[in-house]
């Protein structure tokens, strides 16, 4: 048996899914968090049944790619648990009635039930059940209240003969049902509502946005640097270094195996950034330089996601984003891209048109540096002074802006208007927020660590085979002539295809000037996407558009790198 969890966007499908299956999926407080379906298993009457978390949909007549996915899934389910936001009954009933009209076996979870009380909403559940003709169970996804009862009533859901109804008739029907089962009591403005309104009004909203972004940045730096300075740096230098130095001695301080495991000795000792062995740089870069920032970035992002602030940022930035051929909501994929480009590009599915998805994906893969790369920029470029870090960020931001302006001019079509539901502010439910952070950290370790080690290994073997000497001489005119970098820097650009963080680490031993490091960081950030991004671009855009995006990428990377080299 296969159970589908369906419902409008942002009603808590993913939270209930995690509860049922133990499979953790990212849940946040904004419409469109889930753009792909996730499968999991749970037990029902002693049998294993499949549960699928379907992207949110307002209607079964799709208006976005995420909704298309939802409608596709419907064909494959045996039973639907329609999750309805109890604080928003009328609009949610549209999807419920469409499911019931199609004769799909449906059970309704009246979710977010806890919020109805303090929002002055009173729903007669029994009457609603009678009028709809399917089981209705109040639930609170976050605490798990009602989920058991929901499950015990699954067997009451039966397939029925489909009925045809016009949209107009359906809305009439919904109007009648809500009128009969729901009583709203008027309530005074709460502090939450005052805050909600303040953050979408221009005069108060813009300062709030600036404060939120400034604080986010400060907190990310504070936690990231704190973890490095007080935890990881001492661990690696005080505990790990003596151990690994012994191993180096044991291996005879040189030779093939030593070079692969420990790397080159710098001034007679191990340098975690420059030695470039599997057990030195291969572990130090991902664990001591990147991981702390992954943790701090995703902690802050998770809190922003769960409070419901992001859609408000989308409203404030709508005008700007329209100039880039997008609308305000596209800021969410771009922000996610600051963590890792892959989920960023995946979440462009919340945008309506193919044109928008192309522009957003191109902007993310070219102008948005991922957290791993940013951590390395802070670590390596930051040593030469904050102004150089600002130069890298400033350039990338300009590129992002200009590229959007140009793409909007060049590509046919226009950007559709913004139309989004703005979720209420909520305090982050700490358990889901922490779980989400943990999932993201695990997936970084699982996906990045092996690639970093592979990158280090490949580099060492290729060095050993002297492949790079050949490549460096071949590309010297490009790398040295245009970008003003030593010809050996080509190695970093090649490795950037595997992992950008490792690539930036490889610029370290070249003794670059601060200016050269700025050029190198910018070119690395803009040029070839790493392999994971490459694959997701191919999957989401198709071969032709992916090649187009890559072309833009190469040209703009060298153009911008060249200009930087000239003016710095």
């Amino acid at each position, binding site marked *: 048996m296969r159970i589908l969890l369906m419902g409008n966007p942002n009603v808590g499908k993913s939270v209930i899914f995690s509860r049922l299956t133990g499979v953790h999926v990212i849940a946040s407080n904004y419409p469109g968090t889930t753009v792909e379906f996730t499968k999991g298993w749970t037990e029902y009457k002693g049998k294993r049944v499949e549960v699928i978390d379907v992207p949110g949909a*307002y*209607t079964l*007549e799709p*208006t976005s790619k995420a909704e298309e996915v939802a409608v596709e899934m419907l064909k494959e389910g045996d039973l639907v648990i329609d999750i309805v936001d109890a*604080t*928003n009954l*009328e*609009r949610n009933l*549209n999807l419920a009635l469409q499911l019931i009209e199609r004769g799909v076996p449906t059970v309704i979870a009246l979710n977010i039930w806890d919020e109805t009380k303090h*929002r002055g*909403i009173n729903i007669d559940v029994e009457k609603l059940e009678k009028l709809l003709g399917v089981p209705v169970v109040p639930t609170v996804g976050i605490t798990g209240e009602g989920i058991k009862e929901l499950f015990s009533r699954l067997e009451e859901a039966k397939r029925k003969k489909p009925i045809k109804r016009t*949209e107009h008739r359906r*809305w009439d029907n919904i*109007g009648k049902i809500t009128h009969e089962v729901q009583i709203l009591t008027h309530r005074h403005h709460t502090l939450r509502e005052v805050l*909600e*309104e303040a953050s*979408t*009004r*221009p005069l108060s*909203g813009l300062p709030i946005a600036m404060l939120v972004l400034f604080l986010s940045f400060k907190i990310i730096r504070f936690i990231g640097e704190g973890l490095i300075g007080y935890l990881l740096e001492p661990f690696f230098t005080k505990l790990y270094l003596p151990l690994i130095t012994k191993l180096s001695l044991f291996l005879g301080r040189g030779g093939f195996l030593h070079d692969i495991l420990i790397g080159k000795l710098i001034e007679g000792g191990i340098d975690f950034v420059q030695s470039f062995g599997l057990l030195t740089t291969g572990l130090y870069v991902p664990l001591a330089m990147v991981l702390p920032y992954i943790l701090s970035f995703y902690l802050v992002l998770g809190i922003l996601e769960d409070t419901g602030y992001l*859609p408000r940022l*989308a*409203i*404030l930035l*709508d*005008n700007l984003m329209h100039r880039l051929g997008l*609308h*305000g909501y596209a800021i969410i994929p771009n922000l996610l891209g600051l963590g890792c480009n892959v989920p960023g590009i995946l979440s462009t599915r919340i945008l309506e048109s193919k044109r928008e998805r192309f522009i957003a994906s191109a902007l993310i893969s070219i102008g948005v540096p991922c957290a791993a790369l940013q951590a390395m920029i802070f670590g390596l470029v930051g040593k030469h002074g904050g102004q150089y870090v600002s130069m890298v960020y400033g350039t990338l931001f300009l590129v992002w802006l200009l590229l959007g302006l140009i793409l909007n001019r060049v590509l046919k079509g226009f950007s*559709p*208007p*913004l*139309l*989004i*539901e*703005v979720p*209420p502010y909520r305090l982050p439910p700490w358990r889901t927020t922490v779980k989400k952070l943990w999932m993201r950290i695990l997936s970084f370790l699982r996906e990045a660590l092996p690639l970093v080690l592979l990158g280090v290994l490949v580099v060492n073997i290729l060095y050993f085979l002297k492949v790079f000497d050949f490549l460096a001489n071949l590309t010297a005119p490009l790398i040295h002539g245009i970008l003003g970098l030593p010809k050996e820097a080509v190695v970093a650009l090649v490795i950037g295809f595997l992992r950008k963080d490792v690539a930036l680490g490889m610029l370290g031993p070249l003794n670059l000037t601060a200016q050269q490091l700025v050029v190198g960081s910018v070119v690395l950030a803009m040029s070839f996407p790493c392999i994971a991004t490459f694959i997701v671009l191919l999957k989401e855009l198709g071969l032709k558009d992916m090649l187009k995006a890559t072309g833009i990428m190469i040209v703009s990377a060298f153009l911008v790198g060249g200009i930087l080299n000239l003016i710095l």
Partner: protein
Amino acid sequence: MAKQIPLTQLRRGQSGRVIQIMGGFGMTRRLSAIGIRPGKKVTKVSAMFMRGPVTVRIGGTEIAIGFGMASRIIVEVKE
């Protein structure tokens, strides 16, 4: 006196009843799916300057609508 104006011309905090959506099938459907249909009462919460999105409250939800789209939603207000 009842007056018919585009949603964009509502004052902050003012309410009106949607009477017509001057758009194609696609736009009407997107709007109705999210809860904006003729007959519904909307209250304007805020509007961004320079023809930015208009935020309205409808039932228990806040919805942000791009300026162009909002200007094609006609509401009736009591003067």
